[in-house]
């Protein structure tokens, strides 16, 4: 076997290994170890992606001496490798961009614990991406949940602890639903390995056996994962968790954690239940409707906010709604659009969070719009980056958000029966997005004559500025090279089934 096929295994193990190692190191060294691990995993994933694109087929990797239904197994295809690489890039940028704020907000003796949490979070994301076994997925969902709680509350003030408690309760309900779903599914199929379950489910459906438990499984898993990634009616935990935690955590949570769960859901749809069976189950319509509702209500809540961080957080609700709308369309086009929007949202939302912190820092730490007036002039690089993120979210050409809106619209046109609601809600949501993002951009570029706040030049914050520049480049790359990327996504989806 070629060495390159060991990469998924090495990346998961390396990320998991970095957790205990960081726990015994002092904070500064732990930071370097963590950054090195993320970089190495990123490069390895890129190599794997290249190999898979050239080779043109996915492979499974046996974890141990025993073949699949007995032992554990992981699987790598184009989509998995691409996601792993993308997650690493965003993680590295989010942690580096918020590092200064982290040192201000977290006591020094707990710095290394932050990197433990980040390392384990990365390992769980990688495992969710690569896993081919439902129970392994559940174990890593648990790691993901607990480390996300830690990331939220490491700032240790009242609001973050309250937010973490809320997050934990909601998220554990979601975990419990997923676990129940796995139990029932195991009971009716007798397998935990994804490909075996799929075969059994096909036999069950064609034989007309156990239709009620199967529907129950689909509903439990979809709703459980929807709670965990804050689909519209379950988003109550989101604004506090994203709005008050330290900025790296907010960026990681909004752009990676929810995406990991959505990726798992897509994996379950394609590789466990089967796309056609899932489409005929009726649960997909529920996801579709809640996705549409989330697009509107998330934006409306964002318009009502007077706090920039909470506004960005509410915007996440709307964007998650877009993704679920894409999944709910029930077509290949819709799925490609949803996955592209996952990438687009992940890169844009972390950019917005990180640039917003630069703006609030030059406004006496206040997150209200009043003091933020003119902050785009006081910290130019953060202002430009925020404007780019806002334009991308609204859907201006050249940026990634435009492509995802275009893909959603194209997918809707191919759809019989659901075209009109999708197009109408897409239009309304775009206008609502424009209202609150353009309001913010105009606000930060309204000149004030005698501002009491200091100016920050980008030479004073080189790392932060570099991170923002890379984010902007990433965003434009996604927007400009969209044909190539959607091509990769379609290839990956074909490998799934």
């Amino acid at each position: 076997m070629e060495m390159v096929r060991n990469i998924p295994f090495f990346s998961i193990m390396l990320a998991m290994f970095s957790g205990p190692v960081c726990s015994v190191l002092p904070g500064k060294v732990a930071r370097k170890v963590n950054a090195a691990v993320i970089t190495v995993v990123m490069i390895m994933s890129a190599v794997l992606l290249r190999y898979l694109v050239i080779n043109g087929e996915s492979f499974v990797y046996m974890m141990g001496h025993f073949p699949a239904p007995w032992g554990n197994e992981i699987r790598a295809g184009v989509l998995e490798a691409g996601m792993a690489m993308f997650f690493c890039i965003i993680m590295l940028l989010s942690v580096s961009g918020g590092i200064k704020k982290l040192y201000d907000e977290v006591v020094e003796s707990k710095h290394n614990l932050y990197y433990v949490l980040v390392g384990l979070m990365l390992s769980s994301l990688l495992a969710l991406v690569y896993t081919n076994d439902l129970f392994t997925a559940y174990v890593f969902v648990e790691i993901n949940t607990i480390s996300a709680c830690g990331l939220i509350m490491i700032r240790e003030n009242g609001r973050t602890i309250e937010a973490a408690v809320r997050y934990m309760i909601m998220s554990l309900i979601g975990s419990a639903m997923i676990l129940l779903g796995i139990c029932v599914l195991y009971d009716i199929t007798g397998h935990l390995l994804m490909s075996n379950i799929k075969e059994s489910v096909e036999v069950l459906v064609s034989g007309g056996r156990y239709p009620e438990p199967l529907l129950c499984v689909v509903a439990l898993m979809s709703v459980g994962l929807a709670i965990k990634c804050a689909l519209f009616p379950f988003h109550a935990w989101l604004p506090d968790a994203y709005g008050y935690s330290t900025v790296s955590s907010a960026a990681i949570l909004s752009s990676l954690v929810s995406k990991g769960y959505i990726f798992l859901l897509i994996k379950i749809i394609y590789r466990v239940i089967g796309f056609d069976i899932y489409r005929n189950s009726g649960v997909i319509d529920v996801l579709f409707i809640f996705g549409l509702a989330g697009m509107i209500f998330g934006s409306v809540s964002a318009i009502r906010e007077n706090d920039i961080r909470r506004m960005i957080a509410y915007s996440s609700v709307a964007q998650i709604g877009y993704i679920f709308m894409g999944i709910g369309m029930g077509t290949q086009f819709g799925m490609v659009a949803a996955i592209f929007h996952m990438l687009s949202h992940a890169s844009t939302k972390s950019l917005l969070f990180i640039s917003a912190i630069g703006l609030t820092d030059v406004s006496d730490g206040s997150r209200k719009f009043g003091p933020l007036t003119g902050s785009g002039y006081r910290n130019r690089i953060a202002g430009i980056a925020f404007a780019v993120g806002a334009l991308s979210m609204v859907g201006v050409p050249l940026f990634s958000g435009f492509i995802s809106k275009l893909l959603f619209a194209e997918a809707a046109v191919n759809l019989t029966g659901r075209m009109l609601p999708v197009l109408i809600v897409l239009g309304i949501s775009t206008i609502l997005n424009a209202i609150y993002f353009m309001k913010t951009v105009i606000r930060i570029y309204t000149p004030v004559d005698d501002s009491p706040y200091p100016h920050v030049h980008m030479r004073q914050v080189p790392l932060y500025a570099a991170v923002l520049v890379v984010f902007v480049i990433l965003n434009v790359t996604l927007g400009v090279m969209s044909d190539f990327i959607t091509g990769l996504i379609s290839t990956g989806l074909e490998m799934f089934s």
Partner: protein
Amino acid sequence: MSRRKTDEEYSKTRAYKFFRWLKGQTDYTPDETVMDMDLMIPISDATDTVERMKDRQLNIDSVYDENSNKMLRFFAVLYRVVAVMFCIVLAALLVYNVSYLPPVGDPDRPTSNEVPARYIEKGIEETGAVNIVTGMILDYRAFDTFGESNVLFVATITVLVLLRLNKKNERNSESDDAADDHIYEPGDDLILQTVAKFLVPIIMVFGIYVILNGHLSPGGGFSGGAIIGAGLILYLNAFGFEKTERFFTEKTYKWISFFALTTYCLCKAYSFFCGANHLDSHIPLGTPGAILSSGLILILNICVGLVVACTMYTFYVMFRKGDF
């Protein structure tokens, strides 16, 4: 953008009177006297913003006070009723769903397929562990168990993040320290100490036995670790932090869990790598039933046991005092 009116101008408009009427301060008739002077917001006194804020807060409090807001009380009750109803309906649906599942103990269940068959028939031969459950969790599906021990590890880390006191800020001097210890330490309880003197060694030895015999008899790292953790907690309760600090501090915790997880990670990484690349791992399985048998399982059991024991003890200490 329209110019904002000053308060004096605003007080002359109809909107101002309408909103005051809405709040129940005056009748909605021009030039009417103010009914309730106490509730009147001092709008004319624009400099006194603090008063305004206070007033605003009072208003908010009265709006969110269940005693004065009937609507809110109604919704609070409605919320509870609907929540309970929802839970009952959900539970009923799940129970109803269970009635469709294959009956327990039926030999034709879908779960009785080739997977458990191989575990039972070839388990001893392939893993060398007489206890098939241990063979399953630490050899066939060792990756899941590694994830599970990392769940424990990350849970301890999260508890440390939340509960560990930040020394510089919150604890100033040694006298504070002593006062703290006095509050959190148990009194010198003679009965407890005498019992603990007998029990703790037995519990420890039993825990070690359960861990070391994990591959031979029921038990293993998770249960044995829990027993050792319980023994440590009992010892702490009887003799206090002063005695436990001699052998168990935060450093001990850190290094033990680092050592255990690293060993687990390296051992399993080696074995996974060999397995996946179809190489011979050269790990002897030994004679099934002997204490030194079943390859890596014994080492992994010890690692899991250490992690579990440390996790339990650390949880207790963190919730009790917030510091080792």
